[in-house]
């Protein structure tokens, strides 16, 4: 019946109703496939790679299985257990490929793999890859011997199940470039002998930090995208959150669980203000001016709960907060304050102090200076910023003169402020940031309209919209 419908539609003889039925059937197939892609790719890949030990082969067989599904499901309907269906098809494809390779080379190794693959036949996806299998996959994708960009791309492809085209689009590179990057990464795993495993205890700490860093990089790639392409890059943000959720689940009970929870909370806090951080024109809205009503309260509540859970696990293990938990705690101060003015900046400054102890960086110091300015006054902050400026460790970093200019503006020292805004403008990396700085610069001009108060409260009618 479905076959007839497809044939009729193809011949252009179907009536509107039948066409619609076909279209909705296709939509069903597509959404079923997309759901499987998102949820099952990691499991299927984990199984195929574990058994065949061949990343390239696993990739090809999974691709074939998805192609078969696209052809088969509209005709026979979506199978009851799509993940198991795809695993079986991919596994059979792997058996075929290995059989022909084995007969070509009379390779003994392939025959051993075949035996195991065929052993899987009875259980065909009914025995899904366990937590360990998927963890093995993630640890291998994020191995430090792979280039950072390759780790991100491979994780998106192999664990998250994004297509090469989707990843290429998100990274703004041609599909051929991304495809080459993925092929090279898989080849290196095979040729350089990168082990497919959860690392042993002596390595697990640094390797888990490595995974968290890859996921945070993935998130930031999408999150800090400029207005022109923020939509295109949003999948990176969503996938990073989804993968971190998966990691939290897989790391339950491990000593790394609190930091994974902290990272997830941090991402959710940032993501909660996705709507507020750009105005209708795509301009960057600074935190203090954002419309707090448009923040995603459900995400904020979830993130806060995650932080509490992280704290509980950490206390029971006696571990100190790591950098993601501290950053999430800082974000929490901002995201749970009723207004910018009521933010607990004393706590923010303290948290930045702790962060500087475990992950010393001039950027962290700069943020601490800003928090100090907010809690103890602009002069106190300015003193800290000037120390950083003199140390020259942030030379060329636009946020230093930008922050300095903001404090000078608050102090009413207009000409100095405008000089620093100009300095920042020269260094700002993107148009969104330059537009923001230009707007500030205009405010420091000799004839100010008095529209900006030193302690401006958001939501008091001087939102970013009216300011321009």
């Amino acid at each position, binding site marked *: 019946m479905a076959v007839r419908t497809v044939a009729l539609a193809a011949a252009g003889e179907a009536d509107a109703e039948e066409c619609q039925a076909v279209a909705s059937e296709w939509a069903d197939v597509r959404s079923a496939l997309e759901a499987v892609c998102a949820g099952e790719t990691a499991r299927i890949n984990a199984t195929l790679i574990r058994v065949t030990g061949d990343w390239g082969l696993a990739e090809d067989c999974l691709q074939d299985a998805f192609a078969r599904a696209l052809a088969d499901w509209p005709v026979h309907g979506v199978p009851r257990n799509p993940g198991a269906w795809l695993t079986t098809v991919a596994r059979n494809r792997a058996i075929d490929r290995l059989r022909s390779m084995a007969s070509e080379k009379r390779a003994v190794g392939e025959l051993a793999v075949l035996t195991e693959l065929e052993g899987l036949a009875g259980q065909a996806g009914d025995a899904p890859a366990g937590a360990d299998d998927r963890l093995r996959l993630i640890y291998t994708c994020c*191995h430090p*011997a792979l280039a950072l960009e390759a780790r991100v791309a491979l994780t998106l492809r192999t664990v998250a199940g994004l297509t090469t085209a989707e990843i290429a689009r998100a990274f703004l590179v041609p599909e051929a470039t991304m495809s080459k990057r993925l092929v090279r990464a898989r080849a290196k795993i095979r040729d350089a*002998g990168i*082990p497919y495993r959860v690392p042993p205890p002596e390595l697990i700490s640094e390797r888990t930090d490595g995974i968290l860093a890859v996921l945070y990089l993935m998130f930031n790639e999408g999150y800090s995208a400029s207005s022109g392409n923020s939509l295109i890059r949003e999948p990176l943000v969503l996938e990073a959150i989804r993968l971190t959720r998966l990691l939290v689940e897989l790391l339950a009970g491990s000593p790394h669980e609190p930091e994974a929870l902290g990272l997830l909370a941090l991402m959710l806090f940032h993501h909660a203000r996705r709507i507020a951080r750009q105005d209708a024109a795509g301009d960057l809205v600074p935190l203090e001016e954002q419309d707090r009503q448009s923040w995603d309260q459900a995400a904020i509540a979830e993130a806060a709960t995650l932080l509490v859970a992280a704290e509980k696990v950490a206390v029971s293990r006696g571990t100190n907060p790591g950098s993601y938990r501290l950053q999430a705690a800082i974000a929490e101060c901002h995201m749970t304050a009723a207004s910018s003015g009521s933010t607990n900046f004393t706590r923010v400054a303290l948290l930045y102090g702790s962060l500087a102890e475990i992950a010393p960086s001039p950027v962290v110091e700069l943020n601490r200076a800003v928090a100090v300015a907010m809690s103890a006054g602009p002069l106190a902050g300015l003193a800290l910023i000037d120390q950083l400026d003199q140390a020259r460790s942030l030379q060329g970093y636009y946020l230093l003169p930008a922050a300095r200019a903001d404090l000078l503006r608050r102090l009413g020292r207009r000409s100095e402020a405008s000089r620093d805004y100009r300095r920042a403008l020269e260094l700002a990396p993107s148009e969104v940031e330059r537009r923001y700085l230009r707007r500030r610069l205009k405010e420091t001009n000799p004839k100010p309209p008095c529209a900006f108060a030193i302690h401006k409260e958001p939501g008091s009618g001087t939102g970013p919209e009216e300011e321009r």
Partner: protein
Amino acid sequence: MEYMLFICSDPAAPKYVAAEDNIGQWSAEMEARGISRHGDRLRPVEDATTVMVRSGQVVVSDGPFAETKEWIAGYDIIACANLDEAIEVASKHPMAKFGKIEIRPVWPFGQ
């Protein structure tokens, strides 16, 4: 798997301290673990000779003198379970501290 470790100099690395050079200990450990196959120092590039055959003629020259301050000061061929073990072995080599080490998988013919 077999890997070749290229022991390289690195002008950006901390200065060599003879007292911290535990190469004897490293060799002993790797030998005891059945990892080290063969390794030695290499004479500096000043002692290198380049040979090529062009139009049937053997061309011999002094050098090469590449415009680089990094050079290969030695090598080791090791047999390891995987790259992680090779990284561990390389990281324990004293020259990982005073220079740097490039790990290259050996690519046997027929593979």
